[in-house]
């Protein structure tokens, strides 16, 4: 069984999400990777456990072209996989459409070659589905799979292209978001404050810690209602739903509406005066203490 993994490069290096997709795909058997774009093929060749790199150097970064390219070669594979990034989610369902396959998106667990677990209803339920399609087209959530390592091995690189005529679309460009602070929904680390911060001025105490961790800043609804932070910073059922690698809740009780917006974070830290605060019931690491003492210490401790 061979799997084709569509990977993405950022400059000359391979995105971590793609390395997770490769690791997930290796559970099926041998893996070929496909890289579209001028750079990154040398790096891709170093990914542990892959058979070869297909490099579509000249194919435009458009779903129409990439999907056609993959569909062209699909007969060689029984699984086609990518990370569930905006890139993968744009391309792979189109591949499935071309090949008359029902895609399975946002997979969080692979049970066997045909059976997968994926969240539905914004994570309120987990659905296990078995595919009857001969070919499986999947996107996988990188947070749920370890990343494949980059080793010393070098897989052969094969240049590929397609002559299939694709619909008329042109790539104009990309404007990368320039922000001193990452966006809440995509940040690797989120630090959120609650009403325990007492006022809007104190809310700024989160900033030095956030700077150290390159974290986005969030707020509980209570903090937003009290005017400490603007509404777009609200994390929770009615605000933004986040699932970072690390979530630090500061002076925030953990009302269930808030928990609904962050419970899928990989590691949760709670800092609160009240040892009974519900936030501790979901926190991996809880620190009972006065946040006005803890925050400066935390900044100092992270300083190194």
């Amino acid at each position, binding site marked *: 069984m061979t799997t084709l993994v569509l990977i993405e490069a950022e400059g000359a290096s391979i995105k971590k999400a793609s390395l997770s997709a490769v690791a997930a795909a290796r559970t099926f058997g041998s893996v070929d990777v496909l890289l579209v774009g001028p750079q990154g093929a040398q790096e891709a060749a170093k990914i542990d456990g892959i058979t070869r790199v297909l490099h579509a150097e000249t194919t435009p970064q458009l779903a129409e072209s990439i999907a056609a390219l993959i569909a062209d070669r699909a007969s060689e594979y029984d699984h086609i996989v990518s990370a569930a990034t905006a890139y993968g989610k744009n391309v792979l369902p189109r591949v499935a459409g071309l090949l008359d396959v029902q895609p399975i998106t946002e997979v969080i667990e692979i049970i066997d070659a045909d059976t997968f677990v994926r969240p539905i209803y914004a994570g309120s339920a987990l659905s296990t589905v078995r595919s009857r399609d001969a070919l499986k087209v999947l996107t996988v959530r990188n947070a749920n799979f370890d990343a494949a390592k980059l080793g010393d091995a070098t897989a052969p690189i094969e240049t590929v292209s397609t002559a299939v005529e694709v619909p008329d679309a042109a790539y104009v460009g990309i404007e990368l978001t320039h922000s001193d602070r990452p966006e809440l929904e995509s940040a690797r680390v989120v630090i959120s404050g609650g009403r325990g911060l007492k006022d809007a001025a104190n809310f700024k105490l989160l900033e030095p810690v956030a700077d150290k961790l390159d974290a986005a800043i969030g707020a509980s609804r209570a903090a937003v*209602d009290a005017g400490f932070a603007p509404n777009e910073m609200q994390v929770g059922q*009615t605000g933004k739903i986040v699932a970072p690698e690390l979530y630090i809740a500061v002076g925030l009780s953990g009302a*269930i509406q808030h928990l609904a917006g962050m419970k899928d974070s990989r590691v949760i830290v709670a800092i609160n005066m009240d040892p009974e605060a519900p936030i501790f019931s979901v926190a991996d690491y809880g620190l009972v203490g006065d946040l006005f003492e803890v925050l400066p210490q935390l900044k100092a401790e992270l300083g190194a």
Partner: protein
Amino acid sequence: MGVTRDGEQGPNFAPGMILRARQTILTEGVRGSISQRVMKQFDLRQGVDPQTYGLGIKEVWEIPAEKHKPGFVQHSFGWPMDDGTYGGAWLYHFGENLVSYGFVTGLDYSNTWLSPFQEMQRLKAHPEFAKHLEGGRRLIYGARALSEGGFQALPRLSFPGGVLAGDSAGFLNMPKIKGTHTAMKSGMLAGEAIAETLGQEGSSEATSYTERFKSSWLFKELFEARNIRPAFARWGNRLGALYAGIDSVIFRGRAPWTLHFSHTDHEALKPAEKSKPIAYPKPDGALTFDLTSSVFLSGTNHEEDQPIHLKLRDPSKWLPVNWALFRSPESRYCPAGVYEALEEDNTMRLQINAQNCVHCKTCDIKDPTQNIDWCVPEGAGGPNYPVGM
């Protein structure tokens, strides 16, 4: 629609509409905003008892199939309430392994420390309730005020251009805690009366509604139940229950006297220093729960960017009255955690979390100085209860 938090017209602002009709049937449920206005404007409550209310809080549970007995009905009163506080519970098995559990607290309670929510939670620990719910899981939570005044508290039912029906008037049969059949009947009678009025030249009030009511089974039903609730208000739960038995079994509801309600619910509240503090047990997370996780199960939500729909008519009254005298009763009677008394800069202030509101209207009823105005929020906001649960 589309008014912002500051009261400005937002980008999606859509003006309200004036709906004109020759006759309007008000069926807003208990303590309806328009009905309240109409009763005041047309003086419809003249000569009747003040309306008295209860706060019903309900949960729906899914229980193990082997425990489920479809059609099982259990009612209770008394514990955990003291003798002077009216309240009772129901527990019904229904549907597919579902149980409806609810608790009604008479809003004429006097102890400012009382929390209807906590009373409702702790009754579940009673063996007769716990044995049904153990091993199950809670699915839904909700709350709503009910009108308990019954017959004596019914206002004049018609006014020029409209009528009151259902709980807008207060047709609940309190001893039975049932109001659906009575509301439907009142709607039918209202419809008949209005049809007659619309056919008459120059007539603007459907006055025959009241006569139709008086000659219907609805009148008889409410009349016969009329003395039960006030007996509890007057003599407490034990003697009230004794009286209720005499009134309904011996007199069959036709006792030659009518008991009255002497005061409104908000007048009944006693200051904190005259009330006995109540120590409520901590939730165990299996049978009993905290407030925030409960409100979550009501599915309530409101568009954030709209004016706060719970207004203090006079914000300066809160500190000297609600806090100083009563220690913020709203933070206990509200079953949705809307009101919180917070300490800030060594003084207390009232935080209103309007987004949590489940539209039960208790604050509009029970605030000791009637200072809280429950306004209608932007369309589509509020709790989301599944149909038939």
